[in-house]
């Protein structure tokens, strides 16, 4: 489904990703772990299309399409969705505007008609209930004045509505208390299916207790230096990253 090959990415003259390769197949859940500044957010942002990043070599394909040639919105319409580590506040744009515009853009890209307002409202209310969010969030400006946990829930709310083929979640667990973590994890788990995949960045085993990954990758200094199954995350939790670094240097 997603194929990242030997990806090199430069930001303001600094090489951040230095030959990263990763394959995600449908139905799989991948976790990416790694020290601060190793390039985890850069990877997901490049896949989503952030313009400040320069891809100097390598390739990204999604369902056979060259992602690097697609507009930001086309990537989303194709089913690649990024949940931000730091969701931006968008003063004045109501959540409901965002949801409706996003859903209709996706439907339009698929050649479908716009969703009728009552049907849309019903759908949104259903998803709000899953995320245990009050309907008042719809009339509030996107993320404005939201607590850290509410912002993360809002990201998942968008995912639930847009049902991405590949959900990329960048530290969706940071800033969440245990109850919110469960709600977010339930939301993500409800997206798991044979036709979809999840790629999530995290620092903590805690999230992986709720969303069990099929694969765990360690990203260090712009490269994936080790991959394994869920037990790798447990090992990282108890031993830290040092041993992986030493092992890869050897």
């Amino acid at each position, binding site marked *: 489904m997603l194929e990242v090959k030997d990806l090199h990415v430069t930001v303001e003259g600094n090489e951040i990703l230095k030959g990263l390769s990763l394959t995600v197949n449908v139905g799989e859940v991948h976790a990416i772990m790694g020290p601060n500044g190793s390039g985890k957010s850069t990877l997901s942002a490049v896949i989503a299309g952030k313009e400040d990043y320069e891809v100097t070599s390598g390739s990204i394909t999604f369902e056979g399409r060259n992602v690097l040639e697609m507009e930001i919105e086309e*990537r*989303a319409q194709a089913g690649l*969705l990024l949940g931000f580590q730091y969701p931006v506040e968008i003063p004045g*744009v109501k959540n*409901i*505007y965002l949801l409706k515009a*996003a859903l209709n853009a996706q439907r339009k890209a698929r050649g479908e008609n716009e969703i009728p307002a009552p049907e849309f*409202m019903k759908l949104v209310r259903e998803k709000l209930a899953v995320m245990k969010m009050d309907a008042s969030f719809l*009339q509030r400006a996107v993320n404005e004045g939201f607590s850290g946990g509410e912002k993360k829930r809002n990201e998942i709310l968008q995912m639930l509505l847009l049902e991405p083929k590949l959900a990329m979640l960048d530290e969706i667990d940071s800033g969440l208390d245990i109850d919110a973590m469960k709600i977010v994890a339930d939301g993500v788990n409800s997206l798991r299916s044979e036709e979809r995949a999840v790629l999530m960045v995290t620092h903590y085993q805690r999230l992986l207790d709720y969303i069990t990954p099929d694969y765990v990758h360690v990203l260090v200094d712009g490269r994936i230096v080790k991959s394994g199954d869920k037990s790798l995350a447990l090992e990282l939790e108890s031993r830290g990253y040092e041993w992986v670094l030493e092992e890869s240097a050897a």
Partner: protein
Amino acid sequence: MSATHTFLDRLEERIANRRESATTPEPSWVTARRQAGAARFEALGFPTRRDEAWKYTDVRRISEGDFALAQDADFSPSTAATLVLPLDAIRLSFVDGVFSAELSDMASLPEGLGVEPLSRAMSTNHESVGGSLGRLAGVEFSPFTALNTAFADEGAVIRIGSGVVVEKPILVQFFSRANAQPVMSHPRVLIEAGARSQATVIEHYVGEEDAANFTNVVSEVLLERGAILSHYILQEASLQDAHIGSLHVDQGRDSRFTSFNINLGGALVRNDLVADLNAENAEANYYGLFFAQGRQHVDNHTLVNHNAPHTFSNENYKGILGDRARGVFNGKVIVKRDSQKIEAHQSNANLLLSDRAEIDTKPELEIYADDVKCSHGATTGQLDEEAVFALRTRGIDEQTARGLLTLAFAGEVMDKVTLDTVAERVERAVAGKLPERFNLGDLVDVATADQA
């Protein structure tokens, strides 16, 4: 001969031709006032960029123009219907400054409310108008006020009796036609709001797409004790029109004046708003929005005089400028000595959608009292590119994303607009005027549907 003299001579000749056909002679006080206006205009001349108050606004489009006077108010009702605000309102209409009974609707005015064209008010009882007219807008205020004083012969007179609460909005419509030769008009609006009265007045400037006329309006508003007035200027004139307007407000004790000054049209636009808070507990709220594109030039000058203690003013203006448009905001607050315990807040935020758009913004505070609470600030910026990116990562195309963010920028002011039709009209206009037209209309609908 200077532009001022040429302009004045031509206008005087044209006015004289029109007056010759008039049946009744003008009252002497009117003649005296006209002469004072003309003399003042002649002495001042058209403002130039050397005048501090006109530093950024070049009026040669007007001073070098040759504007006739409209001879009639003929206007196709079907064209008018496409332009008017869909409101259940009391309507008073002018076509290129000439009163149109056909396009007006003043049937069944509530008890205690008077709404009539100035010409009618004058012929019925000119003395009842004479006391108020020109009391607030003196010929000294600006060359354009002087010009209006000299030549105004039509306009709107709105008198709201004490304690009268007018439910329907009062809509004063100014239509501008696509004439073979451009015309000018100098309408005068007089609003007298009696004690504890309450009303909404909308001045709506709109016209045919190819209109290229000059409107020079002066409005005077007197609010007696406890009167509450919402006042809208919705300026949607054609992109060739020149629009100069000044609004002068006199506020009594406990009165509340809320102004919405919304400018979407016009090639050259200048608005002056002046409120005098003359007694305790008077409150003035100024909300403004201007959206200019192409080579539009929009200048808003506002002034609040805190002449009494315990008075309040609050101002929020938003400017959106695209292409090579130019905006000017000058907001001044003057707190007189002994006007203690006043509160004055002012803010102006501007959004530049293009590199070549320009804004000159200047908030000014002059405070001569010491126990006051004042704040002011001005900002100018571009759309938040992080927000554009965030929206696009949800599949929303770039133009729509920018449109949503532009609407959002206007939102803080538009949220204050209590007349939904006006708010919606503005939202649609802003959405529709964005580069590469797109439709945000259904977004507006869904949000309203959910709130209902």
